[in-house]
């Protein structure tokens, strides 16, 4: 809502020296969000005066343009010669002249300059050149509207044009519909500055009367409807400058006198009005629900199929308007209209909100109705509009008027007088509560006495324009706002002793920190995905990752679903980096993936007046499906770049696996690996990762399939890891064990074992461990060798074994026996010890 300060002064007796900025500060403290304070007219500077055209000579020029060489009285001894291109004025007309030295909007500097063979000593201005609207069809001709004094040549044009003003642009929250009006904002301004407020809604809605245009209410969504008829309008009368300027400052476009008056009254009172051409109405005007199959062509020239839950205004011809949203084209006021019926009605907020949304049609009127219009304002607003039409358009108000329905009485709320103090945490006694609420129009009465309320109970009834005051806490907020939140002394509440982060939270932080410490870079990506992506990954039809949740209104048609794997998001991040010349990458992300439930389930929406039962809560969770947190890493380019210390080490499957082990180690757990074929990895270079303790599969790591790299535009041999972080973290031991340290000497034995290429090194190591028994301290693979000695399809694996006993020095015989037993255990894998 844009509110010119001059207009607010009409209703609030603000101090004369109060600036717009000061008023803004006061309103901000009272809880209004003032977005800007605009100085209207500030972009017009220097001498801009009223001039009278004394004489002009039309001159046709070689470029085909006709200009007028004018003599203009600007209140000086001699008239000035000014060239003007517009033809819409006559000798004797009053115009606006920007004299040399003036500066107009757009940094347009006026100087005496030679043009069309004359020296033009100023410029006669159009409305647009003055920043007064879009009109550039001709220059502004100043006419005095009814009640306005005729301007005088030489007079400063700024006050005549009402150029200077300050405009507050206020973002009105949905609970404060009454602030979408000068009336509401003026009341707040008066309250905030302690000044007097004069309500422009100056008369109550009377008892129903049916002496004017016939009206009927046939829907609960309309509570009260006033209709006044004004006849004998002169359709040629323009809107006076004060009216068009106000509308313009408030952000509305002037259209015609009748429409401008209706808009002005709406801005002023908050009551939307509709004006019908009386000659276009047929029979009784009815507010009713639309009927099946009814249609309406609205003012925006759109044919609309109506729904039975739409509230319409109809006459004998059928619907003539979408109530409170937009009127119909057939009964529109035109340039030939001489009689109007003014409608001022109260409509149900929710009904109109739904209609507005259904028809994707929002108007100044519907914005107000959706947020609540004061039902008691309609009668006064209709009279205000009628009076303006009589004054400005020469019409006369018919004495017979129509009022149907009654103003609903707002409900009374029981308010414990001590509640504001208890919730605000600052002293506010009963008298203060009563005084503050009364000041904003709340009717405050003593309530029934209650033993539990030492300060007593109040019965409070909000004014008709405050439908947001409903619960006791609403009144607490109102008191708090009036007291000022700034006056409340801050107190830090004392929480009971906490237990810190949970084990899972600490573990997830540890994984993130560890991966970053060893060289991976965390990124965040959008968690969306698609079937097409899964196809490109080569994910099989029965894979769990195919259980997609799909959005009803996705942000992008190419990613309409929620992700079931983090990898494609990281792939996008890789290509973004490589396109920016960042080629050596180890990106990681932790985050949720979303698996749809096996069967689509509906999350229940139980009533909100009490806690739902456990069954409903469980059904909600079931409907949401699994949302496990994953960890994924994608590697490409060089892990270590070539440098003075040596050649590059390209990123490969080895870092993908090593980072999985780092993640596991960060939470004190360990992983086993098995070769496996699993999309999107290279079938021969993919490790299945299992928890060492339980053998549960937690994820995969390795080099990506070359076709996947190609499909996602990744560099060849890009490697990746993805594992279920929640499962990894859940497997972390609660408490670590510290083993005793043996100070006896270690015995080292190396063994080289020749096995088939297909035998996994980890299996051989396992066999060695099993065979060696408890004296074995560690086993470590230190060489893999292939050559003539090993034979075709074979490889030699060399392991360093370390033996140590707890309480003694091992004998050579013991060590030999343990080593031989270790080697013997590998025989089942077909291993043969190399002895040369």
């Amino acid at each position: 809502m844009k509110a010119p300060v001059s207009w607010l002064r009409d209703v609030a007796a603000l101090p004369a020296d109060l600036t717009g900025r000061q008023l803004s500060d006061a309103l901000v403290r009272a809880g209004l969000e003032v977005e800007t304070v605009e100085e209207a007219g500030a972009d017009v500077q220097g001498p801009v005066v009223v001039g009278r055209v004394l004489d002009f000579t039309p001159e046709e020029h070689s470029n085909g343009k006709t200009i007028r060489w004018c003599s203009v009285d600007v209140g000086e001894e001699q008239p000035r010669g000014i060239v003007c291109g517009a033809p819409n004025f006559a000798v004797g007309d009053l115009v606006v002249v920007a004299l040399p030295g003036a500066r107009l909007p757009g940094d347009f500097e006026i100087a005496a300059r030679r043009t069309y063979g004359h020296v033009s000593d100023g410029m006669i201005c159009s409305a647009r050149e003055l920043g007064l609207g879009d009109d550039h069809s001709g220059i502004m001709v100043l006419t005095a509207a009814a009640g306005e004094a005729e301007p005088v040549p030489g007079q400063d044009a700024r006050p005549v044009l009402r150029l200077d003003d300050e405009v507050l642009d206020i973002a009105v929250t949905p609970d404060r519909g009454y602030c979408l009006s000068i009336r509401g904002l003026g009341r707040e301004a008066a309250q905030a500055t302690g000044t007097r407020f004069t309500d422009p809604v100056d008369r109550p809605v009377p008892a129903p009367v049916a002496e004017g245009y016939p009206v009927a209410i046939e829907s609960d969504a309309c509570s009260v409807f006033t209709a006044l008829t004004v006849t004998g309008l002169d359709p040629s009368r323009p809107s006076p400058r004060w009216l068009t300027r106000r509308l313009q400052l408030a952000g509305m476009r002037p259209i015609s006198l009748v429409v401008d008056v209706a808009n002005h009254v709406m801005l002023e009172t908050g009551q939307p009005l509709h004006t019908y051409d009386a000659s276009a109405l047929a029979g009784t005007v009815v507010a009713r629900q639309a009927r099946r199959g009814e249609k309406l062509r609205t003012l925006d020239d759109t044919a609309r199929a109506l729904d039975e839950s739409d509230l319409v205004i109809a006459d004998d011809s059928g619907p003539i308007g979408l109530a409170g949203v937009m009127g119909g084209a057939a009964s529109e006021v035109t340039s030939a209209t001489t009689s109007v019926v003014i409608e001022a009605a109260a409509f149900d907020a929710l009904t109109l909100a739904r209609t507005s949304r259904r028809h994707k049609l929002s108007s100044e009127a519907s914005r107000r109705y959706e947020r609540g219009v004061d039902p008691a304002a309609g009668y006064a607003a209709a009279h205000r509009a009628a009076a303006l039409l009589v004054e400005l358009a020469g019409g006369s108000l018919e004495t017979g008027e129509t009022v149907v329905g009654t103003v609903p009485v707002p409900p009374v709320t029981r308010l414990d007088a001590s509640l504001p103090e208890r919730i605000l945490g600052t002293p506010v006694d009963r008298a203060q509560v009563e005084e503050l609420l009364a000041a904003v129009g709340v009717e405050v009465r003593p309530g029934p006495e209650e033993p539990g309320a030492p300060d007593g109970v109040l019965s409070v009834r909000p004014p008709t324009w405050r439908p947001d005051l409903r619960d006791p806490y609403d009144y607490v907020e109102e008191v708090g706002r009036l007291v000022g939140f700034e006056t409340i002394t801050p107190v830090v509440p004392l929480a009971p002793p906490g237990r810190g982060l949970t084990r899972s939270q600490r573990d997830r932080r540890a994984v993130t920190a560890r991966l970053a410490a060893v060289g991976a870079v965390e990124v965040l990506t959008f968690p969306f995905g698609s079937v097409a992506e899964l196809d490109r990954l080569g994910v099989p039809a029965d894979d769990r990752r195919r259980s997609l949740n799909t959005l009803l209104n996705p942000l992008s048609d190419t990613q309409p679903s929620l992700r079931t794997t983090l990898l494609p998001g990281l792939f996008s991040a890789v290509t973004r980096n490589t396109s920016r010349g960042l080629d050596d990458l180890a990106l990681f992300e932790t985050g949720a993936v979303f698996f749809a439930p096996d069967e689509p389930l509906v999350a229940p929406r139980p009533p909100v007046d009490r806690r739902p039962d456990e069954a409903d809560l469980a059904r909600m969770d079931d409907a949401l499906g699994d949302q496990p947190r994953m960890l994924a890493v994608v590697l490409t380019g060089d892990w270590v770049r070539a440098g003075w210390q040596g050649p590059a080490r390209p990123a490969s499957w080895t870092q993908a696996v090593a980072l999985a082990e780092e993640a596991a180690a960060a939470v004190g757990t360990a992983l086993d690996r098995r070769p496996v074929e699993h999309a999107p990895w290279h079938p021969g270079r993919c490790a299945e990762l299992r928890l060492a303790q339980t053998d549960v599969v937690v994820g995969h790591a390795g080099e990506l399939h070359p076709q996947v790299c190609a499909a996602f535009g990744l560099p060849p041999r890009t490697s990746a890891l993805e594992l279920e972080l929640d499962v990894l973290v859940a497997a972390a031991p609660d408490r670590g064990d510290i083993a005793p340290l043996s100070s006896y000497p270690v015995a080292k034995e190396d063994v080289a074992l020749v096995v088939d290429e297909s035998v996994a090194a980890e299996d051989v190591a396992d066999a060695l461990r099993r065979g060696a028994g408890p004296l074995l301290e560690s086993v470590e693979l230190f060489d893999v060798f292939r050559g003539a000695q090993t034979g075709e399809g074979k490889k030699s694996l060399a392991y360093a074994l370390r033996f140590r006993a707890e309480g003694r020095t091992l004998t050579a015989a013991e060590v030999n026996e343990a080593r031989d037993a270790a080697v013997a255990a590998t025989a089942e894998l077909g291993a043969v010890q190399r002895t040369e």
Partner: protein
Amino acid sequence: MSGPNKNYDPVQVTPLNADEVEAMVQAATAAFAEATSTAELKAARLAHAGERSPIALANREIGALPPQARKDAGARVGRARGAINAALKAREAEVVAAELERTLREERVDVTLPVALGPVGAVHPITGLMHLVEDVFVAMGWEVAEGPELEAEWLNFDALNFVPDHPARTLQDTLFVGPEGSNRVLRTHTSPVQARTMLTREPPIYVICPGKVYRADEYDATHTPVFHQIEGLVVDRGITLAHLRGTLDHFAKAMFGDTRTRMRPNYFPFTEPSAEVDLLCFVCHGDSVGNPDRPCKTCRSEGWIEWGGCGVVNPRVLAACGVDPEEYSGFAFGMGVERTLMFRNNAEDMRDMVEGDVRFSRSLVGTAR
């Protein structure tokens, strides 16, 4: 060593000749001085102090002398051997020191060469900032609560006093998850975690809820449809707006140093009273307002920075979540993490936070937040 040999003529043996013995000392000392390496010194030692050196041979002759002559000669040769050994030791020390110095000089490296244990990793600034906030509240005894991002409409809206036709529910703001009518949404705030906490725990509740949230918002320098929030919730006996103010001030000081907050009344369905939280600019402390000579980039010379929303938990929300509003009251607040990062760390474009450019992730190094 040989035994006495009576066949010698004592007059002819070297140890009796003082000049000859002195010459041996001179020769040894000169040879040692000539040696410049441990290898050369070793050769000189063998030649002049070894078993076959002249002085060793002379020593051997002493046994053949008569007792009186033996005594003289023994003393003379002993002194000479002592002198030779002392010269050797002294030279040895010099040569070793010189050699060490040479070695150290030769082993000099350029310590300014680039070195790295491995590639440089990083925690994303958003993650780091969320951890920082969590730590501030954990230090006050609060706990960190989490919940699902794909959420039930009831928990995201209904329980939080969003009436069925509330504008925020409409398709413009909320991402709805199919099938139609399944009442599932991507959470539009982390407030459903608050609801879940109240539904599963008895007060007193002091929790912070960090997490990812979704809005069908535009995507530009200051908006992204996927972003992060941190919300706080307290439900306890006797909780007031004063406690909310105290918590916000403490939070602000912990995050920004010398600053405080102010509350401007506002409207949210789930709190009543509701307010916006502004932060007193922690860079200019308001000095830039109306002072064009000292403009402030952080607050755009407005003195206050819009930070988030807050309020007293609406009793309707407490009731829907099974908390008795007669017994308990509470407050809640929430901030956007991306927005906080923008004004706290001067990040200029929100898109950088979600596009995965490693340079952004590496912007905040180590424990610098």
